[in-house]
């Protein structure tokens, strides 16, 4: 019984650590874009399966980018690169535009009705609308 309680406590602790890790990261679209967006649709946009949205990336290798692909798309950086190498060299899709940081990504999303990006939660303002995680 004690062991079970300990297990529950550990898993609760782990869950809160995990949700804390991406509580810092939000996916945003243009403030005027009212479309509802699911986690799967975000993934499909960033992995080139659909161009309903035009995805805006953070720099390759940046912690926020790795975190985004890990938690939302559930892929590690090499899997993401492998998927894009296929798409780029067969002309099936154009890789996401890349911007230097959350402020730059926000600016781009604020200026483009179809854009979708991920930024630090602290960077959110009225120019963008948070679509993930859902409130």
């Amino acid at each position, binding site marked *: 019984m004690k062991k079970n309680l300990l297990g529950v406590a550990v898993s609760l602790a782990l869950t809160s650590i995990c949700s804390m890790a991406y509580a810092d990261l939000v996916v945003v679209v243009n403030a005027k874009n009212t479309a509802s967006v699911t986690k799967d649709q975000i993934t*499909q946009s960033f*992995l080139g399966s*659909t*161009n*309903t949205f035009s995805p805006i990336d953070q720099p390759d*290798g940046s912690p926020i980018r790795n975190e985004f692909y890990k938690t939302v798309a559930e892929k590690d950086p090499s899997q993401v*690169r492998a998927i894009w190498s296929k798409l*780029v060299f067969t002309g*099936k899709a154009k890789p996401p535009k890349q911007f230097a940081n959350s402020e730059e990504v926000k600016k781009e999303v604020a200026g483009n009705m179809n854009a979708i990006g991920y930024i630090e939660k602290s960077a959110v303002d009225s120019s963008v609308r948070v679509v993930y995680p859902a409130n």
Partner: protein
Amino acid sequence: MKNSIKNSGPKNTHCVTYPARAEVRTMRKITSMLLATLFLMALFLAHTVAHAIDLDDSGSFTASGFYSLTGASVLGGQAQNSSAPWMYQQWNCPCSIQNWEYVGVYEKSKGFEINQESLVGVQLRKEFTNTFSVTGQFVMRAQNPNNSSSPSVDWLYAAWSPSADSPITVEAGRLRIPLYYYSDYLYIGYSYPWVRPPPDVYGWPIYAYDGANISYHTQIGSSAWTMNASAWAGSYKQTYDAYDTLIYYTTPTTESWDKMLGSYVSFTNGIVDLRAMVMKYRDNTEVQTQPVTTIVSNQFTRIEGLSANVDYENWVVRGEIDRYQQQAQALDIDNVYKYNLLGVGYKIGDFTPMVTHSYYTTITEPIESQSTNSLVVRWDFRPNTALKVQYDDNKDESHYAYKFFGDSRLLSVSLQGTF
């Protein structure tokens, strides 16, 4: 296709002039040097940039590329229950065919060879507007009998969409045929788990088309699934087709695939990826003997492919079933090829080990058939670069009266990446 001339053993017809040997050697040397230079450049670029290189200030003209530096060694092999060395066409066997398009064959007697499959590709893309672009992809290969030393033009096409966020794209020019799952990115090693997609499945004479395609992709409602559908039409003529010439007829052979008409549809939800393809065309194959020997003329041919892939958590599953069918009872043509592959891998950190079984067979005697069990480990040791080590155990199950490629055991090492 591989047995279009039935019951014909390996032939050694010397009635046609080949380029002088010395000339070929010089060309090969130049190719190797160019390839080595390009390869070093690629490594250097991969080191400095992770993304496409901008060739102008606006970012509308970009260069990107890929490379595979592949070396392999035949550890052993036998044919018709004897491991005594034998010849198949120009090759000293035990040997192992790993690329059919450019005829990459490793010979045990040559030890570790890096000049059969190594390549560097560069892609240039110019975006004229946000709905119109032109893309060219040029590949320098260590082994290119079709085209001697010059880089091959794998892709050169214009792409247009009605609008920037349109689900429709139209492309026209030189394109790769999206026949089986890996056909149109057979040489982008970084994008798949193996050193090369199983050659048992990826062998035929023509891989490109000059023509046009239209594709459409969409999210299915608000589900997790997206659909991608594409249709293409075109033709392609390959004079001195390496596959026909070197592997089968030993005399320069021209093959053309005319009136190609194909389509595929694929569905994915990010975990499961399903694809179905069908293509038909008219085949013309002529061996340039004096007079010309016509193997097939305007012959209706159909190719079909089904694939199912799964990427679930750490699991990687790759499955494919394909069929090539060229039949005409009146002409005594009965060329049917059945192909399949199944691979299962499990990702552990930066390592992805995978086991794969692949197989092909024809259906009429003398049957041509091979199967392979392989083990590959892919190591993503740095961004945009993977090192792969692969062991293949290949069984020749053909019923030819003579010794074909035979059984072989092959060890391959490949450094593959993009820049």
